[in-house]
């Protein structure tokens, strides 16, 4: 599964690397010009990508430090004429948290159960293939399409309780419930892939040993398999979280784009979840020149906070990956795509 980790210890890599001085056979100087050009381009391409990533982080850090004030994190957004009057982004922060929570609550059991069923039971096999294909379809579907699907779904009369209904009888279809449910679809593929890869990496003899002492399959899953793939699930959850907090399209379409969280109904917790609001991503979106309020300083500050979250989650994934030592260490393609 993981290319990067695999190639790490490749025996040939180091000594064949012409630039590291170990190229015993031929030094690049004696190569034809086209080969030298290709070599130069490979180095340029690799370093260019690193440079772009570095530039983005550094630029956002500079802007973030320039514009981010601690008060912004604690103030609720407000309507105002100038950037000093429009408050901070407490509500968007909460919104991001709520959506992450709902998304994970739905996606984690779904992803882990599917992975368990497919690797441990998977009968009939055509049904297993359908499930696996479905998850791949979800992974490949653009988030804007998922968002439109969510809108259509939550505007049906059946799901009206999850959002607010206008006096005319039209279901609004936009709420934390709606956005969170669709977020779970975004988080599902990495969660499933990470858990499945972990389960597949558990050696067969561990299962056989458990069966030999008379454990049932489900007991083996609970006592042997789940504990040994805990770190894989953690990786999946982390990847899922970074998907959720980075997604904008779903929030734009399904959370109503109100500045503050606006609860619907009188029950405190449920009312909030039925209501509309915003997240960090839509806060950035709304405050950029593309949105309504042109407040680039606020947008930079919020985008910096967002990027820091993503960076932290990335570090966590790297950490867990290193502890696992082999599978899924770094950026396993399934996790990125």
């Amino acid at each position, binding site marked *: 599964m993981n290319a990067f980790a695999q*190639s790490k210890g490749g025996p040939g890599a180091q000594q064949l690397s012409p630039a590291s001085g170990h190229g015993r056979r031929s030094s690049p100087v004696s190569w034809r010009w086209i080969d030298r050009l290709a070599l130069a381009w490979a180095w340029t391409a690799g370093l260019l990508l690193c440079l772009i990533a*570095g530039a*983005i982080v550094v630029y956002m850090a500079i802007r973030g430090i320039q514009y981010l004030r601690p008060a912004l994190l604690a103030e609720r957004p407000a309507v105002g004429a100038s950037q000093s009057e429009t408050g901070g982004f407490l509500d968007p922060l909460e919104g991001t948290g709520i959506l992450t929570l709902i998304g994970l609550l739905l996606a984690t059991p779904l992803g882990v*159960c599917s992975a368990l069923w497919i690797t441990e039971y998977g009968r009939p096999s055509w049904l297993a293939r359908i499930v696996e294909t479905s998850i791949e379809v979800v992974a490949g*579907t653009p988030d804007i399409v998922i968002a439109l699907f969510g809108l*259509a779904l939550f505007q049906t009369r059946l799901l009206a309780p999850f959002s607010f209904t206008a006096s005319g009888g039209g279901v609004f279809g936009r709420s934390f419930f709606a956005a969170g449910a669709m977020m779970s679809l975004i988080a599902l593929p990495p969660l499933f892939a990470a858990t499945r890869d972990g389960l597949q990496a558990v050696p067969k003899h561990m299962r056989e040993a458990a069966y030999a002492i008379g454990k049932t399959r489900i007991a083996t899953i609970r006592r042997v398999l789940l504990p040994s793939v805990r770190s894989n699930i953690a990786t999946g959850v982390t990847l899922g979280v970074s998907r959720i907090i980075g997604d904008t399209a779903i929030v734009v379409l399904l959370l109503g784009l109100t500045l503050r969280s606006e609860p619907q109904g009188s029950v405190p917790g449920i009312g909030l979840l039925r209501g509309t609001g915003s997240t960090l991503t839509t806060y950035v979106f709304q405050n*950029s020149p593309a949105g309504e309020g042109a407040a680039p300083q606020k947008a930079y500050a919020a985008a910096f906070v967002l990027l820091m979250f993503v960076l932290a989650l990335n570090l966590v994934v790297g950490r867990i990956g290193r502890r696992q030592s082999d599978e899924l260490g770094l950026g396993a*393609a399934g996790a990125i795509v």
Partner: protein
Amino acid sequence: MLERLRHPWTDHRAERTLGAVSLIVGVVVVAMVAFVAVHAWPTFEHDGLSWLGPGGNLKDQTEAMQATGAHAPASAYHLNAWPIIYGTLLSTGLAVLLALPLAVFASIFIVELAPRRLRAIAIPVIRLLASVPSVVYGLIGVLVLVPFVGNHIVSDSEKAKYASEVQLNGYSLIVTVVILAVMITPIMVALICEALASVPKAWREGAIALGLNPLRAILAVVVRAARPAIVAAAVLATARALGEAIMVFMVSGVNFFSPRPGDGVTFFFEPLRTLASTIVAFAEGASAPALRSALYAFALLLLFSSLALSVAGYLIKLPLRKYQVRA
């Protein structure tokens, strides 16, 4: 009842339960296709497939759609979406063309050339590039690249020349393509690296033993063996670029103008509009049934394109199994 719950699960029951939970995803996918198709149906009903074609004025058409209110007459559904489809194909195609050589050689660098310590830095950094939210890319685009292109790259004479048709203010094809390329390159790098690393080392060593220099050996043997995976990576990246909505909405200008290749270099500085960004643009006003149906028709188009591309990516990778290259 409680007694039953306290008992350890039987295998049979566990299998049933896990299977049922797994099937939810399948149901969701079917529901997704069904919901989007049902909502898109009016457009197909009134226009057949002709809404995919050129002609007409899209700006007037969408305005008419919004103006018709709750009960749209059949004429309101009339639509010629070709400019949007063209914009989508154009930005996606150029972005993939730009990203492909970058991704292939960056992958060669990571898998074959980079010293171990540099590789240990490059991999997490490129992974970070893949996880930067699209709204952050959009923000940098709209606040840094767009003004830069508008103020320093496009000359005043160019602006004046096209002023009557379109405003060349930096919201442009070139910015869209460059950022899209940066966004899809890490995805391609991940897939290509996986394939390059799974090519047996002995093949390359054999090529070197036959007298090729190390780089030639990589290009002629390793990259060649991984060619299906490279194509598949490009295909999957295409699917990703097609559906990018927020970033494109922020930097492409979301203009009804389509870039004209006949305009020379200015072509790259002209604004455009894509399917996904159009959905974002009209998301608020989607209560008019005609417009709503058109948006769902766009979504259906995106859904089927990404589906077809996923299948294509899978099929292209099949030959790799023949070589026993794991990918």
